[in-house]
């Protein structure tokens, strides 16, 4: 089987290889519905030349595109061909099965979503990135005009993203530090110099048509009578996650009050850090268990740590902390080697950006929606995104914990707790509210450039 190398980059959409965060801090996502097939194809054909590839070195703006299963069906894939796609992609994110598996309960039920559920389905996702606000507005206007003049597609929703690299998410913590390096992309050194650590993962875990960590390819989707239609494509998971910033900080406040009813900012930030597994600056608790050595807004992208040797018992980063659940590194099964090998098969590439205004006062509910447009890329939605969500983040028995879920993003069960391991014994905090609510979402397929041309021409 072919290994990924630079010769394929021109067939891979740029977004798979880069977040564009460096030179394109502004972004907007457009969710579309196909209204007339012929005109939609016409519009797509014109658009195809604008789609950014992995070899384009653009500095002004980038545009990428992905499709849901119903879109591919309308655009000409046969039922049999669609069956070659990943099962969750075929069925969609909002089915009762997926809802249970992803933990979209309570306020997060798909019935409440503003898009991606049966009431508000979407077909096509456009991801637009630009070097500045003006550039973004100009490109957005062009795109939207094109869409409304096309007669083939209709704009369902336009989702604005917050300006990067203000990568701090709304709760106040530096985000987007740990990221696997795709083998064959030559980004190892870059990651190493940014975070002091690089995990190189087989290209097939993120780009279809290549060897994955089991040295086998994940199923290659078929389309337009071609067995290699899916080559250089990937699955894109999009979830709009509202963050309840004031609930988070008020919970920290309430929980850290001493006997006289007083809480300190330092105590709150420490509890927040225990929940996340990193201090606000990004510094990992495993390396700095007691205090944050860096004062925000200075950031610390240190990712050079593992749990087994230094923090096995969770005295630094709690066993159930967000970053430990979503990337347990070498901490599972009392066997660092097996753990690392297993964990490598459940990685995702995160490409999300936050949305909404920053809270002026994190304790006050200003009634405005803010959160994260969570986007991730993977070759096997079940083994990667859904596994992390189900078997790690929302698993009440994760690593022998009792009735806990991810303290930051988890759904809540009755009587839920969060254990903070320590000497001589753990403390527990109780009845955590849901700090995050799912507001929309869908599974998309992001095709390679050749496949995109097939979709656009319908043959």
């Amino acid at each position, binding site marked *: 089987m072919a290994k990924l190398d630079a010769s394929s980059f021109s067939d891979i959409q740029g977004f798979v290889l880069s977040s564009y965060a460096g030179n394109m801090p502004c972004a907007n996502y457009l969710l579309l519905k196909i209204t007339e097939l012929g005109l939609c194809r016409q519009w797509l054909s014109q658009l195809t030349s604008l789609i950014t590839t992995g070899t384009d070195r653009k500095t002004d703006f980038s545009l990428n595109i992905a499709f849901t299963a119903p879109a591919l069906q309308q655009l000409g894939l046969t039922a049999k061909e669609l069956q070659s796609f990943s*099962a969750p992609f075929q069925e969609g994110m909002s089915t009762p099965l997926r809802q249970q598996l992803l933990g979209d309960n309570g306020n997060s039920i798909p019935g409440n979503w503003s898009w991606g559920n049966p009431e508000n389905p979407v077909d096509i996702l456009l991801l637009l990135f630009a070097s500045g606000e003006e550039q973004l507005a100009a490109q957005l206007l062009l795109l939207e005009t094109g869409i409304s003049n096309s007669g083939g597609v209709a704009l369902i929703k336009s989702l604005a993203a917050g300006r990067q690299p203000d990568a701090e998410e709304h709760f106040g913590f530096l985000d987007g530090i740990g990221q696997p390096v795709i083998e064959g992309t030559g980004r190892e050194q870059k990651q190493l110099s940014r975070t002091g650590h690089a995990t190189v993962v087989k290209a097939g875990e993120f780009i279809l048509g290549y060897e994955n960590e089991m040295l086998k390819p994940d199923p290659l989707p078929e389309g337009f009578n071609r067995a290699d239609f899916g080559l250089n494509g990937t699955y894109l998971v999009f979830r709009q996650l509202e963050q309840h910033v004031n609930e988070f900080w008020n919970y920290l406040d309430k929980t850290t009050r001493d006997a006289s009813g007083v809480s300190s900012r330092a105590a709150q930030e420490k509890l927040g850090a225990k929940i996340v597994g990193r201090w606000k600056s990004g510094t990992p608790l495993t390396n700095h268990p007691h205090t944050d050595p860096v004062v925000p807004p200075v950031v610390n992208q240190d990712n050079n740590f593992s749990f087994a040797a230094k923090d096995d018992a969770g005295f630094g980063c709690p066993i159930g902390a967000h970053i430990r659940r979503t990337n347990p590194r070498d901490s599972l099964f009392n066997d660092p080697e097996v753990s690392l090998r297993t964990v490598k098969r459940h990685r995702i590439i995160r490409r999300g950006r936050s949305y909404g205004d920053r809270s002026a006062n994190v304790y006050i509910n200003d009634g405005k929606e803010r959160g994260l447009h969570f986007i991730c890329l993977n070759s096997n939605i079940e083994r990667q995104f859904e596994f992390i969500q189900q078997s790690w983040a929302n698993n009440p*028995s994760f690593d022998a914990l*009792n009735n806990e879920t991810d303290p930051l993003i988890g759904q809540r069960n009755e009587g839920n707790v969060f254990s903070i391991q320590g*000497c001589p014994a753990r403390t527990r905090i109780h009845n955590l509210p849901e700090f995050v609510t799912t507001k929309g979402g869908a599974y998309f397929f992001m095709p390679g450039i050749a496949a995109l041309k097939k979709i656009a021409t319908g043959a």
Partner: protein
Amino acid sequence: MKQTVLTIITEIDPLKIASLKELLAKIQSDLYHNPYLPFPSLTLLHFASFVIVQNSADAPFLIFENNFDGDLSSYLDQLLGFAENGIDQIYKCCKGYHQPQQLKAFLTANVVKPNAYHIGNVGRAAKDVSNNRQLRIILETYLDKLFGTTKPEAYTSNQLRKNLQEYVNTQVSPALSQPLPPHQTFAEKLMPQVWKILVLALAGVLAIALFPITLGFIYWLRRHERADRPYTDPASLAHVDDLMKTENFITQNHLASITAIKPGPFRLYLLKAVLFAANLLARTSNKGTLSGIPSIHFAHWSIIGNNQLLFLSNFDGSWSSYLDDFIDKASTGLTGIWSNTVGFPETRFLVLDGARDELHFKAFARGMQVPSLVWYCAYPDLTVQHIDKDSAIREEVLTNLSEEDTKKWLKLF
């Protein structure tokens, strides 16, 4: 307490299969309070399930899986004591059963003992599991209260443990804190080890002494393997959805699967030999893991009718994580077993490749899985590891520990 793992397998009267399914659905819809099978009253029971196997070649049959404490007779007495009517109604749908007076004899006569089985928490009775859980919850609550007024750092490990012990001695029922018997007696631990050594020695001697035959066997095996045709289609989405609908409601999940053994005596006897070896290894594993997998409560394999392999497993967590555990940690063993059945991914030398082909293996596993029509677990929020930890808390709660062991013990909370 020794645990017993077995199934009761009976042929279903084809005319009554619909009403049997209806009855099982009623039981499943209310596991705890249904009038037919009051599971929570069965204090000896760990896990139980009902599965129907239906294929065109054979008559349909009913598989009643039982994982319980003690011997069969006392378990059946308890079962029939609480559920005679329900069991009677179930087996009225099966051939060869006539009246309630013969129920115990009928069930006993249809017992199928596994060719190989695994128990995650050896020697821990269902009642102990539940008591240990209760003790842990009481102590957790006590610690929460204590730390609500004083910070943990105010205590040394020894002081904290003393406080806990005092609380146990004065406030907790001795039924929850008195010492537990060891997981296994000395003889129970020793005998399988002796057996294993004897069998391995014998197998080694024979393999060398009969070297030409060993070579012939390997040649014959490779000939078979090259002629095998693995399944390559993905499992049907509707079938998988059907299975998934019943999964992930509690900490554990259930997997029941039936695979056809590859035709001919070669594969049948090879499978029997592999299962014999697997059973020997499982009997001598002392860490509660099956080939390194820490998440299986009870699992077993039975060869049925010399042409089918039944596998039943009660495991922690999601199906995907279970299958990944299998692939990451036990692919040799499970390939050695299932490569003797039809459709398994391409295998070399009995144990190589096979399950390491993740996607085909998962498709195979889903394809062979049959719905668990009834499935009951006596402790729906406990993993194998939880049971171990709870047990360790209980075993050492009132003993004398060194400071170092005290620190370790406190980490169990």
